[in-house]
């Protein structure tokens, strides 16, 4: 497997490390990569098992909470503030949340992978810290007031005695400005959700007013005394290496401070941003010829011809025989392109490297990994690198944040002054770590009654680089230019699966998932095989919102629709027939009910073959197998003359366990649905024989604000009795399949390649 695919498959175990150290999450498979990292002893962060690392009470009774999960725009800081306010019975406004500063907050590894909600809102980490603090305060008050704990009440930061209203003591009096000197108590009880007054409520985001009035300080707005501005000069084509730099070409340009060359890294530093931009444009740099790129038109076919590293996720070893004996067999191939994070603001970071010490303001999702890998690229000791998270433009995964942080650090070190770097649009788009492309083949058999009897899934995905993790700065472009290698790719044969693990959603929801004698899956089909081939990529790749999960789900849920149509079954009824997971069944039924789903097979009878045809499509997913559940129904209209697909309405049912903030959850579901629609309908990285050609918003096709926004109705399913799960990546995962299924319902034509552009739809309609 490539490092990338390894990362995609193991992401969850990896991300859970920070939590796992304290909580002991079940972990199937090998020792997580960060078992030796993500620990305070190495990262220099406050130890995660100590209450002082998480919660402090001021003399004024204000509560400060420290978290290793950061606000990226997804609303998690609001929810964390609610959590702490709730557990400690203080007003929301009286809690200050500080997150992701390597010197001040516990090391919780990356903020990614839909892990913030499960890791911090269950029975460990921030939630456990707040519960431990509440119990500690009650114990202190009991001693102070001479009253038994069970007769004490907490309200608005004051503890009172039920038996004597005159006896009360505030948190400030009990613990203000003092150290707790307590370990997190794994027996500390969370407040039951039936008593919640802050958590579970649609509390507004405290950062909203600053954002709407231009007062919010993004990393782009960080200004340090004496700060200079940098600009990088990337290679013109893929595979080019540096031959020479003609510094004379920019000599005397106004404001120019320095030209910086280090191995294949080239950059300039100037007094002002516009001066840096001009110097970078005028600098004469000689690069070697590129390595050449394969034809995009032959790309998907080429994947299966490359050396691969193979992973078997499930294998009942009987699929060939079962398929051979089936009444009907179906086989389809689904194609998904490389896609971009495409943040609206190109990535930016500010670094101040002075002698052997460095401070970095970065929008990275992993401040602790910027600390360790930043130290590597600077040649400094990790303990001398201080990384402070500062919010950037929404990232949706590994955008340019990590690479631009290296750019800023290297340029600041060379200049000896603080340096701010913001990438150009093209530098962001040509070199970011794209969401992986996939070629997925699905094969299944039906019995005479139209039930699925066997399912084979075989996929190919190319990878190069990934998140840098603790020690691989070469996983992003700047690290590689500075001479660090990306994680190595080595081909290898598949081993039999050792444990059930569906965190990439490679395993269809409808199979039993039998590994080691027990069924870990959510479905009923017992004859099953899932084989993934990881191959080398020519482009950088990395996690993009719902990595692998989205592409696999597009294939599974489109294919399920093909099987239903072949069995002349209603697509919802057909899914239910093959599912045995209550939560997945509930979101599927929830979306169908909200949409007034009409039970009938697809395609819709009576539609004409010209003009506008309307149809509906359904899809569902148990995200990562058990980390959030979404069902969706989409209504579309297809203009059969132009091929244009207009999405009319979407109904999204979502279950993320106990709802921490219904408005925040709704915002994530709505945004995920529309972002998924943009990715499904227009977004695709393109290239010529030398370089990426989708390098701006004319050549990379995001839906702008001006498109016809479909009405989205969310069905939020609250599960107070369940564990909190991920919430931000579920809705986006099911959109592409729902839209493809709706186009089939409208026209009888099946689309198996993303994006569903008008040209592609028109061509499919013409060919039918």
């Amino acid at each position, binding site marked *: 497997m490539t490092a990338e695919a390894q990362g995609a498959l193991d992401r969850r175990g990896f991300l859970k490390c920070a939590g796992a150290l304290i909580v002991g999450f079940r972990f199937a498979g090998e020792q997580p990569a960060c078992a030796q990292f993500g620990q305070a002893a190495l990262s220099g962060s406050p130890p995660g098992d100590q209450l002082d690392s998480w919660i402090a009470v001021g003399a004024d009774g204000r509560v400060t909470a420290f978290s290793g999960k950061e606000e990226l725009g997804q609303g998690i800081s609001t929810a964390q503030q609610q959590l702490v306010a709730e557990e400690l019975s203080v007003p929301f406004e009286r809690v200050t949340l500080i997150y992701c500063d390597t010197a001040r907050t516990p090391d919780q590894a990356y903020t990614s992978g839909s892990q913030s909600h499960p890791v911090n809102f269950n029975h460990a980490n921030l939630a456990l810290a707040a519960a431990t603090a509440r119990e500690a305060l009650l114990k202190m008050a009991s001693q102070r007031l001479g009253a038994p704990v069970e007769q004490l009440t907490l309200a608005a930061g004051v503890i009172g005695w039920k038996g004597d209203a005159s006896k009360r003591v505030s948190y400030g009096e009990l613990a203000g400005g003092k150290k707790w000197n307590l370990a997190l108590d794994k027996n500390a009880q969370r407040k039951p959700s039936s008593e919640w007054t802050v958590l579970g409520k649609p509390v507004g*985001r405290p950062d909203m007013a600053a954002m*709407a009035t*231009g007062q919010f300080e993004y990393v782009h707005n960080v200004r340090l005394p004496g700060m200079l*501005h940098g600009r990088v000069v990337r290679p013109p084509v893929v595979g080019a290496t540096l031959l020479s730099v003609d510094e004379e070409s920019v000599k005397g340009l106004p404001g120019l401070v320095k030209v910086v060359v280090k191995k294949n890294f080239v950059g300039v530093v100037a007094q*002002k941003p*516009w001066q840096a931009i001009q110097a970078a444009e005028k600098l004469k740099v000689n690069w070697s010829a590129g390595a050449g790129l394969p034809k995009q038109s032959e790309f998907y076919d080429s994947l299966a011809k490359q050396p691969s590293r193979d992973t078997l996720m499930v294998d009942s070893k009987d699929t060939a025989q079962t398929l051979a004996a089936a009444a009907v067999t179906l086989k389809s191939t689904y194609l998904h392109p490389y896609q971009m994070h495409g943040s609206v603001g190109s990535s930016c970071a500010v670094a101040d490297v002075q002698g052997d010490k460095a401070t970095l303001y970065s929008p990275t999702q992993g401040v602790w990994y910027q600390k360790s890998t930043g130290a590597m690229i600077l040649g400094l000791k990790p303990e001398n690198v201080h990384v402070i998270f500062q919010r*950037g433009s929404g990232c949706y995964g590994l955008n340019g944040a990590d690479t631009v942080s290296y750019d800023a650090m290297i340029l600041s070190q060379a200049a000896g002054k603080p340096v701010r770097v913001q990438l150009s649009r093209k530098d962001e788009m040509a070199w970011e770590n794209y969401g992986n492309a996939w070629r997925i083949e699905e094969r299944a058999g039906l019995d005479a009654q139209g039930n699925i009897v066997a399912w084979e899934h075989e996929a190919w995905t190319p990878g190069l680089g990934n998140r840098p993790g603790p020690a691989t700065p070469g996983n992003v472009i700047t690290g590689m230019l500075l001479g660090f290698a990306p994680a190595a790719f080595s081909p290898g044969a598949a081993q039999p699966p050792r444990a059930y693990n569906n965190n990439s959603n490679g395993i269809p929801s409808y199979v039993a998932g039998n590994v080691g004698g027990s069924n870990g899956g959510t479905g009923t089909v017992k004859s099953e095989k899932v084989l993934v081939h990881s191959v080398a990529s020519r482009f950088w790749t990395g996690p993009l919102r719902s990595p692998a999960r989205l592409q696999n789900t597009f294939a599974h849920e489109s294919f399920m629709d093909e099987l239903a149509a072949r069995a002349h079954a209603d697509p919802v009824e057909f899914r239910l027939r093959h599912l045995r997971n209550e939560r997945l069944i509930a979101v599927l039924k929830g979306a169908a009910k909200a949409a007034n789903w009409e039970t009938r097979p697809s395609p819709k009878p009576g539609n004409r073959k010209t003009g506008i045809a309307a149809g509906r499509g359904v899809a569902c997913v148990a995200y990562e197998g058990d980390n959030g559940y979404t069902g969706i129904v989409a209504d579309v209209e297809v203009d059969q003359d132009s091929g244009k697909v207009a999405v009319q309405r979407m109904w999204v049912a979502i279950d993320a366990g106990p709802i921490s903030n219904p408005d925040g959850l709704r915002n994530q579901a709505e945004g995920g649905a529309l972002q998924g629609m943009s990715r499904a309908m227009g977004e695709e990285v393109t290239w010529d024989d030398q370089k990426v050609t989708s390098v701006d*918003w*004319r050549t990379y096709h995001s839906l702008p604000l001006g498109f016809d926004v479909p009405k989205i109705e969310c069905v939020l399913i609250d599960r107070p009795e369940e564990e909190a799960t991920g919430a931000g990546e579920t809705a986006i995962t099911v959109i592409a399949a729902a839209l493809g299924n709706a186009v089939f319902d409208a026209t009888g034509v099946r689309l198996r390649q993303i994006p569903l552009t008008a040209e592609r739809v028109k061509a499919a309609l013409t060919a039918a």
Partner: protein
Amino acid sequence: MVTLKVNGRAHTLDLDPATPLLYALSDDLELRGPKFGCGLGQCGACTAIVDGVAARTCVTPVSSAAGKEIITLEGLGTAERPHPIQKAFIDEQAAQCGFCLNGVILSAKAFLDKNPRATEAEIQRALSGVLCRCFTHARMYAAIQRYQKAVPK
């Protein structure tokens, strides 16, 4: 030397006249509203209202903005006293990362100032070149409609 009138105050700056207005606003004047998104006039993040028109400041030379009335997002209102359109966005919780809000709010305001009775389709056309990559579109349109309804025609 170029004199820019920004949010009601005049500033004289020593700048190459070809410098895009964005850098004068975000760096020389350290305003946080206008932001670099693409440098190509394709996304709207850099928008300021220049003489009543929503301008892409990343492709507007300072020389052409000299002497004109320039309004940035912070020129509309503050967190404590937000402009009605800013308040509508706060009330609708119409953002995720918020980076695009500058372009969305100013483009909508400039358009509605001139076309207070604009239809939904017309507003949509006016925002056709603005990007929100968190796709908070539904809430943003709800906020714009809330503002439009509240403003006397």
